[in-house]
């Protein structure tokens, strides 16, 4: 046992990059000269502090965005409600979608969870560029405030949908300041995302601890590498498009307007060239989260680890070539190419499902709140994934495009992602704060959310087939749709109540249940350090000889992995 823990000094002699960083750590080891309190928070470049700020801010955006969604759902409970006006309704769904996509899921995933967990998982003392990391956060916060300011300016917030299609988003059809704030917000948060992408890639490529080879990285880190690369490829395109849109609005260019010789569809190409990879920028992190959670709570290694890594890379690569499946009904894109590319994404996604099932198979599955959320993710994402296959088929997309079928499809997906996020919080929260969240409240939260999510989307699929278009404030022509819409609202309210349970849980569990270093008997490196980790993350590292060094350390007898049917006799149910 004694040779398992290798001191930092030993580490230094092995690897130049890491050695450099660790020397740095020694210089700063005395934390008493660090600023404290609010000043510490304002000036911190510690990835854990920044990551926590990101997590909290993005959860605030989730709560606000969810509140807007409840208002939308109230309006839709009757065919011709006057709860909000048409104009207000357009602002509501635009800001709901924008908050959720731009300010919640992405920043929560790569600014929050990944920022905190990736350096810990690979044994790095911090992100590669800590100051850039801080800049990311402050850009994100200012962008978020900028977007919300739309509600207080004359004319109200942006109201052209979260996709801002030209020419509706130009100065003639959307003259208000809300639209400009929306663009400015996306520029700010866009740069924030790009910087985080740079940081993730650099950290993962250059700051891995000795022994942490690429194929020993946990799946979450792999997925964040793929996410980081996608961010770098996709976000600059959106940023460029937004600048063009701004020029059209204020500097007299005609890039997206027919009158001056421009091409409105170009906006859609630019937007979705970012927008589809964005779907995977949002999804891949949570694929990673549930992979880790399922492995930990099944007490098993990730099944088909290498296949899963290749599946992730394949998804990332394919996702760059499918953007026009959002434009099938424009009539100006090559249908078969984008159709087959989109269908093919189902293959690596399917592989992941079998990896997850295979990980549980033969394990000891523990139904903690985190694990319940992970299973809720699997079920809900399965529904969203299957309905996504329809949309990859152009004739079926012609049939369902811009109806509630699509709203239901992507809410199956994004609500699954929210469950993945919650799984991550229940799982890693103790590592970040040092305290566990209450499991009973967590389970209530889970069941309310899981049932609520599906009670909301199922009627919406049906409404879509009946022909209800998305983004409508009234359906006066079809009053018989009211019942289905009311069911959807019931689901939305359940999710709202679930979120209240979550907030209550945070308050209730505050400093209540000390976690210890590894409360779940989890396997990856981050569970080796203290909870919360010290300033530069590790006092000592275990030897890293597989992708689960903490497990190897705690279960020396059950270390080796079974490859297929070989080795079998050597590994009966091993007991520690």
């Amino acid at each position: 046992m004694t040779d398992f823990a290798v001191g930092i000094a030993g580490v230094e002699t092995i690897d130049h990059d890491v050695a450099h960083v660790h020397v740095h750590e020694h210089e700063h080891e005395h934390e008493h000269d660090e600023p404290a309190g609010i000043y510490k928070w304002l000036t911190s470049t510690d990835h854990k502090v920044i990551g926590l700020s990101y997590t909290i801010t993005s959860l605030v955006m989730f709560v606000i965005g969810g509140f807007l969604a409840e208002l939308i759902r109230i309006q839709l409970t009757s065919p011709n409600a006057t709860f909000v006006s048409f104009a207000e309704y357009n602002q509501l769904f635009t800001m709901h979608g924008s908050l959720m996509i731009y300010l919640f899921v992405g920043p929560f995933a790569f600014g929050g969870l990944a920022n905190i967990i990736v350096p810990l998982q690979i044994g790095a003392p911090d992100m590669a560029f800590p100051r850039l990391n801080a800049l990311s956060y402050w850009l994100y916060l200012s962008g978020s405030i900028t977007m919300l300011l739309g509600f207080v300016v004359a004319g109200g917030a942006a109201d052209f949908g979260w996709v801002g299609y030209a020419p509706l988003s130009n100065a003639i059809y959307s003259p208000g300041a809300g639209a400009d704030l929306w663009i400015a917000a996306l520029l700010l948060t866009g740069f924030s995302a790009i910087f985080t992408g740079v940081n993730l890639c650099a950290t993962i490529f250059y700051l891995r601890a000795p022994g942490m080879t690429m194929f020993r990285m946990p799946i979450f880190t792999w997925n964040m590498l793929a996410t980081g690369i996608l961010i770098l490829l996709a976000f600059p395109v959106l940023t460029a498009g937004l600048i063009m849109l701004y020029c059209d609005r204020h500097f007299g260019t005609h890039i997206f307007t027919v009158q001056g010789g421009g091409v409105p569809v170009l906006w859609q190409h630019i937007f979705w060239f970012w927008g589809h990879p964005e779907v995977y920028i949002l999804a891949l992190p949570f694929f990673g989260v549930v992979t880790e959670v399922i492995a930990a709570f099944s007490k098993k290694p990730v099944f088909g680890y290498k296949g899963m890594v290749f599946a992730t890379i394949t998804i990332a690569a394919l996702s760059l070539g499918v953007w026009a499946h959002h434009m099938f009904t424009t009539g100006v894109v090559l249908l078969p190419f984008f159709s087959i590319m989109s269908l093919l994404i189902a293959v690596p996604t399917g592989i992941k499902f079998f990896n997850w099932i295979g990980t549980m198979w033969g394990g000891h599955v523990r139904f903690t709140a985190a694990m319940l959320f992970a299973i809720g993710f699997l079920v809900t994402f399965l529904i969203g994934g299957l309905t996504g296959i329809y949309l990859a088929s152009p004739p079926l997309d012609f049939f369902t495009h811009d109806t509630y079928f699509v709203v239901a499809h992507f809410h199956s997906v994004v609500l699954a992602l929210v469950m993945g996020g919650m799984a991550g919080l229940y799982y890693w929260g103790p590592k970040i704060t040092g305290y566990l969240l209450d499991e009973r409240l967590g389970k209530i939260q889970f069941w309310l959310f899981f049932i609520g999510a599906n009670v909301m989307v199922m009627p919406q699929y049906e409404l879509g087939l009946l022909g209800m278009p998305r983004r409508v404030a009234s359906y006066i022509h079809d009053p018989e749709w009211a019942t289905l819409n009311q069911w959807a609202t019931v689901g939305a309210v359940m999710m709202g109540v679930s979120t209240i349970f979550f907030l209550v849980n945070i308050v209730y569990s505050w400093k209540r249940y000390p976690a210890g270093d590894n409360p779940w008997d989890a396997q990856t490196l981050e569970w080796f350090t203290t909870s919360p980790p010290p300033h530069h993350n590790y006092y000592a590292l275990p030897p890293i000889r597989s992708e689960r060094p903490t497990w190897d350390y705690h279960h020396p007898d059950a270390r080796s992995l079974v490859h297929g049917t070989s080795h079998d006799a050597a590994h009966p149910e091993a007991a520690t």
Partner: protein
Amino acid sequence: MLVAAGGLKFGPLHAVGYSRRVPQPTRRTGDAGGVTRSARRWGVGLLVLAPLVLSGCSLSTFGADPSPTTTGRETFHLWQGFTIGAIVVGAITLSLIIYAAIHFRAKRQHEDSVPRQTQYHLPMEITYTVIPIIIVFVLFAFTIVVENAVTALPSVSKDNTIGVQAFQWGWRFTYPGFTIVGETTQDPILEMPEDENVRIVLTSLDVVHGFYIRQFNFSRYALPGVINPFTFNAQRTGTFFGQCTQLCGLYHSLMWFRVKVVTPADYTAWLSMQQARAATLSASAAGQAVQEQTSAGVPIRPDYGGGTN
């Protein structure tokens, strides 16, 4: 699924999964043969029966409309096929998820032990990679066939070529010699003959709109600066509801129209009547304005939804 499997044990899946040729210390080896046989029966039964049972209600629409148009009908059948596939794949995957989670839940006697640390199983991994690829190419093949039918542009007579221009917030239907215009809830009527190819030539006069006819199972964007042609062939007469599906500003929710399919004889009669009327009207100065009122006289932009803010 769990219930539907009836008397068949779930043990077989475990066998297929990992232990087909692996004697497991914790299991009676005698099980292996029977288990594998019932696994096959279970699997084959499911694969063969599910589509049959499901399409046994081969009239089941799975929520979609069988559509009056030829192409809408093909889309509808594609929908049915995709749905059968989705139900089979979804049911299998869902049962595996639920089965794995529940069957392998940790029990008290597991507290201080660890399960077998299985990580790779190449034959399984190849299987679950190859099968989805095959499914995808089958789906793609069907997609291509239907897509070619839906986007085909057979030649049509001049009388059957109708221009459609979307604008904030209404529709303008241009026939040879006259135009029909209506805003929001006025529901302008797009008249077309039954059992003949009709060409719609779609464009927008301002922002992007969506031209969508529910029961035709079809929509297409109306894009400014782009002319989008497509074809319908309706197999029965009737009136069908159409609506803008792409957000186009304030009155997007009310941007309605109707499609009226009539017999070819009625269509020809209607055309010449409208043409004659248009000719007389354009003789008078006020004609142009009146012509725009050919639809029912519902007031434009009524006070729906709490007004305009």
